[in-house]
């Protein structure tokens, strides 16, 4: 196997360089055509905000990974990028790297499940561009399988790893059913938008946005089908909401303790969740002293995030076991490809010999007898070839006896004088399987 590839990611390059080499779908399509013409028979390109990966099977026997980098940089020139900003992979290490990427353990945030979808899309695009052969298709399937198994069989993608999602996690520990709760997000900036999106995705019954600049609140509200609450009249509307996220860039407190106290009085003590995800803080932390008021700031939410990240890290060995499992399966299958042409040639040789002999007696015996002899010949060939074929496949599948498999293939071909078989035919056969 001579799979070769390069990767630029968060471990090898700063964000500026990663952004600079990022490829859009159109760019991937264009580059694929170039790679197909120049260096690869088949391959694929994966490009996300955190990584760009190019893998493929070279047309020539000895391809230097630097040639792939050259092609990439020729297509998308980037200043100040060095060869050392790319990791290079070949054969086993390439397969292992792909499995690690798909399972999320190579991601900036361990267990990132988005990467699996992105990998799937990358393989799909490659297939759409007729850039995949049998081996790459199998590799794609196994890579996706590894990603799925990692999510299903381990907790590597469990738990919130962003502050706004951790806040939602806390809310879910207080309220059982968010579809019966109303939420207010104060601040329509990036953090506020993320929080509002999480709450929207969780299906809160009513979502409202409040922002000092009304137009921004309106824009976010229309995006998420939310209401708008006037920033100036926050205090008198606070009691209407069970969940309040605040993420403004205000210098002082936007919500004082007495405002919360009043709201609680109007709510007749019904629980309220205050998530202060702003720096500096928006909500008076003394609010947490009130009964049935659940207050969290960015520090306390960061505790959850770091706990979850630690737990994800602890799952890495389990994911690595899955990767090892699937590498064994993949290479067992791959190794059998080496013996498939030999098996085909021997079988064809025997079948040809059989039909040759049958044709000699065809006109000398009755049709019924001929059918019986033909059937017997077919069964005889099957029985004669059964053990050698099974043994050859076994030798190849175990993986450790690759040399044995090769020498046995050669031995069989020598014994039956099949060494003259056209090598290109062998390769064609290999590709067909």
């Amino acid at each position, binding site marked *: 196997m001579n799979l070769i590839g390069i990767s630029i990611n968060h471990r090898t390059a700063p964000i500026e360089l990663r952004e600079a080499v990022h490829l859009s779908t159109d760019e991937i399509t264009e580059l694929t055509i170039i790679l197909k013409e120049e260096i690869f028979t088949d391959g694929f390109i994966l490009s996300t905000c955190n990584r760009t990966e190019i893998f493929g099977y070279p047309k020539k026997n000895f391809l230097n990974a630097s040639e792939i980098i050259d092609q990439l940089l020729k297509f998308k020139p980037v200043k100040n990028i060095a060869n050392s900003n790319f990791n290079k992979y070949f054969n086993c290490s390439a397969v292992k790297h792909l499995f690690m990427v798909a399972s999320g353990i190579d991601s900036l945030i361990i267990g990132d499940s988005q990467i699996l979808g992105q990998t799937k899309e990358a393989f799909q695009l490659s297939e759409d561009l007729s850039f995949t052969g049998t081996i790459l298709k199998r590799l794609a399937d196994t890579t996706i399988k590894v990603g799925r198994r990692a999510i299903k069989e381990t907790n590597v993608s469990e738990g919130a790893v962003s502050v706004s999602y951790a806040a939602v996690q806390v809310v879910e520990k*207080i*309220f059982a059913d968010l579809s019966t709760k109303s939420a207010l997000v104060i601040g329509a900036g990036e953090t506020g938008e993320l929080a509002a999106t999480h709450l929207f995705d969780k299906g809160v019954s009513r979502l409202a946005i409040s922002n000092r600049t009304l137009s921004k609140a309106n824009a976010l509200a229309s995006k998420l089908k939310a209401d708008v609450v006037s920033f100036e009249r926050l205090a008198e509307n606070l009691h209407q909401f069970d969940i309040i996220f605040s993420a403004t860039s205000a210098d002082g407190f936007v919500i004082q303790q007495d405002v919360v106290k009043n709201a609680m009085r109007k709510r007749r*003590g019904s629980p309220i969740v205050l998530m202060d995800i702003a720096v500096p803080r928006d909500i008076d932390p003394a609010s947490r002293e009130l009964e049935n008021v659940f207050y969290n700031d960015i520090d306390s939410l960061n505790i959850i995030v770091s706990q979850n990240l630690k737990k994800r890290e602890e799952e890495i060995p389990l994911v690595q076991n899955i990767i090892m499992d699937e590498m064994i399966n993949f290479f067992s299958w791959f190794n059998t490809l080496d013996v498939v042409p030999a098996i085909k040639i021997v079988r064809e040789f025997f079948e040809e010999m059989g039909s040759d002999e049958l044709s000699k007696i065809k006109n000398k015996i009755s049709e019924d007898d001929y059918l019986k002899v033909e059937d017997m010949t077919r069964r005889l060939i099957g029985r004669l070839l059964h053990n050698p074929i099974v043994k050859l496949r076994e030798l190849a599948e175990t993986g450790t006896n690759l040399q044995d498999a090769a020498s046995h293939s050669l031995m069989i071909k020598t014994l039956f004088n099949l060494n003259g078989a056209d090598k290109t035919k062998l390769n064609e056969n290999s590709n067909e399987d």
Partner: protein
Amino acid sequence: MLETIHFLNTALPLFYLATFIVYFLDFKKQKKTLHNSKRIFLFLSLLFHLFYLLSRTFEFSHVPITNKFEIFTILAFSIACSYFLLELFSDIRGTGVFILGFSVLFQIASSLFIEDLIEVREVLRSPLLGIHVFSALLGFAGLTMAAVYGVLFQLLYKRIKLNTFGIFFEKLPSLETLEKLNFYSVIIGFILLGIAIGIGVIWLPVAFPDYSYLDPKLVSTLMVWIVFGIGIFMKIVIGWYGKKVINFFLVGYTIALLSMFLSNVLAKSFHSFY
């Protein structure tokens, strides 16, 4: 039959212990495999326990309610069975470890000291007494479960308020869910205790010529029932919720324990059989 009863008597604490361990492991590690299989453990334990109770009833010709240790095995069964039904209908599976520990303790105590009683007082052979005791025990099992959920609610409430996100934060269901479970358990306990009191009041004059409606056990049980009734009223009609109602029911449960202790240990009456 006797051999089977003796075998099950020894095996039941082990069944419950195994179930408890599976629930504990699931709570601690939350393995997907244990998540479903633990319910099978509990179901099988209950099935064996039911068979054991029926076997005892037929073999000794009386419902196993004639001494403390027979009551203990029924209490173990009632708690586990109530939890099983609650888990089945609510599909909230993370709290079993806190409930099933009671079943393990009661069953161990019962299995160690239970005797094969054939000779019992005639009054204890009455099927009406069987229903009375069963419903009372199931009622107390319900209230015990409510108390456990109440304590879990308090634990989680404090942890969220103080931002200490440990295992309880991670593994317990939400506060609202715990409050619901607490309330459902109270309702079950209240209804069953009501049935027990009702049967007791009707059957009392028939069974005991020297009966008195001022019997300490009857009065204390009625008091507990009224306290929980007030709690239910406050929640449904007045709209109490959260910590306030949980605390009220916890106080109710403490009164129930105290009154049971006082009426069983200190006051002697016709209502004492053991």
